[in-house]
Each structure stands twice: as C-alpha cells, then as structure tokens.
C-alpha cells in the first residue's frame, strides 16, 4: 500500500524551482503553449501544481497541516498526467507524481476520500465489473455472434470498459487489424475494468480485488501476451499492477503491449500493409498513459543515507522511454497522410484533462483542458487529431461540442483499419 511517509524525502527535496509548471525550455516555441500543468494554468494557485502538492505533502508530514476539506478538492483536481514529474526529473531525483498519488492514498486511508462520483463508479465496478454499471455479460456485445474468437490463446486482447461499451468502433477496428495480420487471439468474457480509476483515486484495496480477478482471467485464457487498444489499461497493466504487487513489470506473468507497439512491429515485419491514398493532414496527441507514464515499474525499498544518498540506487522513471515513436511510425506509413506536430508533443504533451478521475468529478475543468488541446491542434493546420486512448478521444470530442475547431478526432486503429 502507498504510504505518504515513504515519500517524505521527495516532499522535502522540492526546491520550488517551478519547472513542474512549464514545458522543457529547449522545446518552448511560443508563449501561448509554454505551460504544461493544466491545473496550474486553470486555477492559478500554487497548490494546484506539482511543487505546491509536494509542499502540502511536506506540511502534512511535518504536522503543520491537518486534514481540511479543500485538500480533497486540490488533490483530486490533478489529472495525474505526470507532466510535473517528467519536468522535475530532467534535473532532479524527485518522485513528484508518486507523492501526489500517495497523498490521495492517504486521504482514502484516513476515510476522507475519494469523492462522491468516484465512490459511485467504485460501486458499479464492484457490482458489475465495469465502470458503467452495465451487466458484464454484455461486455462482448460489440462482437457479432459468429465472430467470437477462440476461448483460449497465447494473445489476449484486453478491450477495456470504454471500447467495450461506448466507443465500440475502436474494439472492432482493433480486431480487424489483428485478423488482417493473421494473428490468433482471444478475448475474455471475464474481463473487468482494469481499475486505473480505483488506483489513481487512492482506492488500492478495491483495486487489488480487480487486479486479482483480471490476472486470474488472463491466466485462465492461457495468454502470455496481453494487447490493449486503451492507453489507460496499458499503463495499469504495465505500471500500476506491478506497483500494487511490488514486482518489476518484467516479473508479471504476461507481457503487455499497446496496440500501436503491435501494429508498428507488424508493419516493420511486413505482416501488415497499407493500401489506398488518404490525403489528409493530421496531428498526433500523445496520451499521458501511453507516453510519459508508461515506463516499466521498478519497486524500490531503500533508505536515504547521510547526505540523502539513496541506498540501494533508486531507479527513476523519467518519461524517456514512453511509447512515442510507434504511433508516429504507423501514421507515416499510411499513404498520403501527413503528420504535423503540435508544439507540446511526446513527453511534453498537454494532458487532455480526462485522467485521474477528473472527468468524473470536475467535468468543466476536463473540458477546458481538452479545449486547450484542440486549439493547439487547430493551429497546426491539421484536419484530424489522432490519438490512441479512448478516454482522451471521448473528452476531446465532448470539448468539441462547445468549441467549433472543425478538427475531427479519431483513434489510430480506425485509420489503420481503413487503410488495410
């Protein structure tokens, strides 16, 4: 279980340099898009920033700040996008994001959190195994009767709640791609919500139940590889599950792939070819969970010796090895398609605003963050914004209803499915 006390060193080590609020200066291209922390831009107060939250954590650890209702609002408005974490770790060794997550875990452990809408979703997951409260037997309803894959297989497609129940075209496109590549795969009717929202809102005990169920279901399917088209599910399996189990990612009983990694490999190997001509300008939105937050988990149980030197060495996840290039390589291979980058891209991406349980609780803020992204996308001259996270897509589309940018949002698998 996460304990705030385990991050005391990080809370104290923050020097309040404010880098957590700005994109990497080497990549700053304009004043307009120079900032990276959505909560800080929107709410202004330092409490809404990586450095501010670390200082709050320190105040709590030092007994200067007791629980106060505002704490819930402050810690749960953060989208946990990890921008602050990556920016801080360019220069320093501070676990900014984990400390924020530990703050959330603390408020849950003390019985104050999470917030009402989170609790409602938790209840739905407990009752039905998905975030929407729909009977879980309908999870595979998007597949036509005759097209159900084998019940067992080495590769399992983990569909995720959103693509199973809401944006089912993502799931359909994904299996079209897998089949076109002659990949034998299975899906599990026993799939439950991955639990990203539970873990990110600090509800680790419930999350462990979900984790155990999903791992059992995967093992029962005989799969040794899990492929998902959802960036959140991907990060949950690759990072959050190992964290809860205190294991390295490599020590999990299966390998996890995002569909873009998979497609990129298939294209390189010649197993998947694109046809036709799609003359369109697109821009690619890096989902936080696929990009800067997706590096493998490395547990660390150590101490800080004199002069604050960690023993054993503490390996930091700095966002360097996220999935950035594979989606771009796929897009570049689609004939006629031109990619134009937004100013904030890859590990410097601007969060769409949906993550960390924010969309469910602070919907107006989530939409505002997405509108910011749409404006940035529009300025590139692109006609489409492509991403590979159903939650990003949903939030970006919702935002589009309030501002007319003329830009369209698609999942990468939809483009690929069209091009094969």
């Amino acid at each position: 279980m996460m304990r705030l006390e385990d991050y005391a060193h990080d809370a104290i080590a923050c020097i309040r340099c404010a880098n957590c609020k700005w994109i990497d200066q080497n990549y700053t291209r304009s004043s307009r898009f120079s900032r990276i922390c959505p909560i800080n831009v929107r709410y202004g107060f330092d409490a809404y920033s990586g450095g501010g939250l670390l200082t709050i954590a320190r105040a709590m650890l030092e007994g200067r700040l007791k629980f106060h209702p505002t704490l819930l609002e402050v810690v749960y408005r953060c989208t946990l996008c990890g921008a602050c974490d990556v920016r801080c770790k360019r220069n320093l060794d501070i676990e900014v994001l984990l400390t924020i997550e530990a703050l959330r875990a603390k408020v849950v452990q003390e019985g104050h959190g999470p917030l009402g809408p989170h609790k409602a979703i938790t209840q739905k997951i407990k009752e039905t195994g998905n975030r929407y409260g729909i009977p879980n037997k309908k999870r595979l309803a998007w597949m036509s009767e005759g097209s159900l894959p084998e019940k067992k297989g080495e590769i399992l497609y983990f569909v995720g709640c959103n693509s199973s129940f809401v944006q089912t075209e993502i799931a359909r496109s994904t299996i079209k791609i897998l089949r076109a590549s002659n990949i034998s795969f299975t899906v599990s009717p026993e799939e439950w919500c991955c639990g990203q929202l539970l873990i990110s809102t600090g509800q680790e005990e419930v999350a462990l139940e979900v984790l155990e169920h999903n791992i059992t279901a995967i093992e029962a399917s005989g799969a040794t590889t899990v492929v998902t088209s959802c960036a959140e599910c991907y990060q949950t399996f690759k990072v959050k599950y190992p964290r809860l189990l205190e294991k390295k990612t490599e020590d999990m009983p299966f390998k996890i792939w995002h569909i873009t990694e998979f497609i990129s490999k298939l294209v390189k190997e010649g197993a998947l070819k694109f046809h036709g001509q799609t003359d369109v300008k697109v821009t690619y939105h890096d989902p936080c969970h696929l990009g800067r937050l997706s590096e493998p988990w490395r547990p660390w149980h150590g101490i800080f010796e004199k002069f604050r030197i960690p023993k054993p060495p503490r390996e930091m996840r700095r966002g360097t090895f996220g999935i950035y290039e594979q989606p771009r390589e796929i897009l570049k291979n689609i004939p006629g398609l031109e990619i134009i980058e937004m100013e904030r891209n890859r590990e410097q991406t601007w969060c769409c605003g949906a993550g960390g349980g924010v969309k469910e609780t602070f919907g107006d803020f989530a939409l505002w963050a997405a509108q910011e992204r749409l404006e940035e996308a529009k300025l590139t001259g692109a006609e489409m914004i492509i991403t590979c996270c159903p939650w990003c897509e949903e939030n970006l589309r919702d935002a589009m209803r309030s501002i007319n940018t003329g830009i369209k949002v698609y999942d990468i698998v939809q483009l690929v499915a069209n091009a094969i």
Partner: protein
Amino acid sequence: MSFPKEAYQALKSLVGEENVSDDPVICAAVRGGAAGINVWDKDVVSPACVVLPKTTGEVQEIVLIANRYRLPFYPTSSSMHVLASARLPNTIAIDLKRMRGLEIDEENMFAICESGISSAELFAEVLKRGLWCMVPWCGGQASVVANTAVHGTAPSIYRFGFPHRRILATEWVLPNGELINLGSASLFRDYFWGEGPGPDLRGILRGTLGHLGGMGVVTKMAVKLLPFQPEPLEPIGISPHTALKIPEKRIKFFNITFPTYEKAVDAVYEISHCEIGAMVMIIPSLFRYVAKSRGKGTAAFWEEWNKLGEWVDWTNTVVRVCLIGFTSEKQLIYEEEVLKEIVAEFEGKIREGRPLDESQFTSPDAICSFFVTGTFHPPTLVFDSLDAGLKTARRNVELRRKYKGVLAEDHSYPGWTFSVELGHMCYYEFLCYGDIEDKESLAKLELEILQSDIKLGGWPMFQDPSLLGPAWLNYHHHLRGLKEIFDPHTLSNPPLPERLPWNVPPETVIKKGD
C-alpha cells in the same frame, strides 16, 4: 491577531472569489520552498492568504489594502520561491502569474513583459524574430521581470553584462501603493527608453542585489533585446536528454584545459581582453560529473564521483567558451582563431564541443546543483575579480578539509567561476553539500567562511552588506532611507531588503579589534 475579515472581503471584491484564498491548504502550498533547507527556508511561515491579481490596478489596490490594515505582503511571479516568502503572521502573498502580458517591438528591439512571463517563453518569441534575450542560470522558467530586476545572472552575462543594463521603462507599485513609471513610460505610454526624467530610479531596483520584493511590486518592465545570428536552434531529444542543435557555422562551444588553475584564470582574462566569446566560464569537474549523471540518478553520480582520489586534479577544471558569430560566419572564424592563439599562449589543450546546447541558451539549469544531495548549505558566493575568485577557491579547500564528515566528499574541487562583463568582474560560487542534520557544524563553517571572505577582501553575496563597510558598499544605507519614506510600516516583504533572514550578524563575523 487573525487576518482582518474586512481586508479579506476587500481583496475578494477586488479580484473575485476565485482569485483569492485564505484556505489553509492553498496557503500551505506557498510556504516557501525547501531550497537548501538551511538557507532560504529559514523563518518561513505560511501566508495568511494568496491573491492572484490580473492587472497593475489590482496590484496597486492590494498594496493599498495591505497598507490600510497594516498587513505584510510579498510579490512572487513564476513562483520560484527563493527570497519572497511570508515570514510574519497575516502576510498576503501576491502571486503575479496571471499577469501574462507580452509585447515585442521587433524594430526597436525591446519587449514589454508583465511579471508572469517566463524567460524561456520570451526567448522563444524573440528567437522567432531573429533576436536574443538572456535566460538566467536558475532556469528559463523564472520570470523575466523578477530576474532582470534582481541580477539574475546568466551564462551570457559575460558578453551582455548584468541584466539590469537592459531595464527600460518600468511600471512599479511602491510599498505605499503609489504607482510610478520609470523612463519613457513616465512621460508617455511608451516603453522604449529607461532613463529619466530626473534621477534614474532604476538604481533603486538594481542596487547590489535588487530590492528583492522589499520595495513594492514591479508589474511591468520593458527589457532591451539583442541581435542574434539568424540560423534556427533546433530542439532535439527526449527528457532528460533534451538539447538545442546549434548551427555549426555560427555557434561553437570549446572545452579547454590548462596546466594550472592560474593559467586558466590568466587565459580567461586574455579572452575577455580580446573581447571575443559570448560565454566564458570555469567549470569544475563536479559539474561535469553532474552533467554526465543526467538521467542516471544521484547514486550513479556518487559511484563515479567517489572513484576520484582525495584531491581532484584542478587541471581537470575546464574553461568552457561559447563563440557566436552574431554578425556573420566570418566573426566566428575570427574569434575561433583568436581563441586558439590564446590557448596556445597559455599552454592549454582545446577541444571543440558537440554542436549541442543542453543548458546555456534557454535552459540554464543551475537547479542541477541540488541534484548532488538534494540540497546544499550556504554557499560561498563572491562577486569580485577573477583573482579574488581564485584566492577564495584556494581558501575553500583548506577550510573544508576541517569539516570532513560534515560535508559530503567534494574532493577539494575549486568551485565554479564565470567571467562577467568581459572580465571586469567574476562570479565565484562554491556549494557546500553538508549534512543538514549537523546544523551546529555547518553554522561554524559558515562563520569561518565569512570571516575568511572579509580578510580576503571579497564581497560575500547574500550577506549583510555592512560587513565590508560603507566605503565599499553603501546602497543599503540609501535603501533604508527610501524604505522609511515609502514603507514606514515595513510591510513589503519584511525583513527584506534591509537584511536577509539567514544573514549572520556582522558583530558575530567581525569581532571588536579585528
């Protein structure tokens, strides 16, 4: 006494409910920082409320409210909390990050910045126009206005001089709430010129280290921009290994080693004398080890650093020179030839650096100094001549040997020096990576360093200016007089600028009869 309800209500009416807060959580988040725990965090408390003004008029009103209710206040801009923090009860934190105005006059080469504009964003905007501005060592995230007003030293300070030399017309809310405009803005709403009419009040901003928030709030400042070479600087890499690819025919970095430290200093004098180069600094091996450890973590740093013997060979110290062909490619060719002649004269070995810049142009990252142990104790900071820097370096080695175990192993590294204003001054910095639990020993070390600084004749920055006597430095006397007139109740960022919270009392440093 609790914060007056009427004052809070007035602030709320002024900026709107969403832009002011007295919530303990919101206030706790701006309780200074941990920067060098023993140093800048001293005596810091949470402010009683945080207010986010959008306009100069709002700032003025806030200051007037503070005066009306006798409430201390301090300004902060990009929120790099170093010197601006609450240290008294009922303090108002004026957070200026909503003040995001930025206008660039390309033809006349100046930019008008409000306080929330960062150095990196100004750099990005002016670069598009073929111009250049200085980004301070503390990083591109720092505010242009704050750093220009308080000597935000930068790598290019060698070529372009102190930041205050680029202050043009300025808008300033005094501690009593009065609004003044300096330079051309005082006559007409145009910001192109910094001087007059009458006495040049920029001296009050500038002083020795600036007024550090102790004389009100600067809300808008025009800063002079400089011409730059026309080729683009292309960003490359993924964090933490991000850099700018530099045009090789226009910009070059050189790393030079010399047989002795003295020869390195003499060579820097000569480089400065010949007026070549855009940045010249003497970089200790410690910094190179920090740079090599980027992305690997502190443990990796210590593993490599500990392989060195007790004494670092000071000839490992590198003189790093950046040459820029501002006017033409030929300028770069000329400067390179001159540099090589100087290096040969002082028996140095020159090596051209990679055509990349990680940390000089837009991302100067002195923040990495904290990487070694997560903090540092009061450093030796000397603004004097290059010779004084060298003397201080020698002294530091001797002093630090007595504190083995209190200080982390530094292998007697000589510190960091850079040439300022074409060699006319030097900035010398030595960071003590101390055991912060052993406060008593560190305080003793600090005192010894100060006493020694005085004997050496160097000026220890961030210490009581009266240590060297009024003949050397009398700015603080003038400022005290002005403070009495404009801030009679000492409300503007107390106790600054009169003294800094961590100042060692002069009578402790210099005993009677010394």
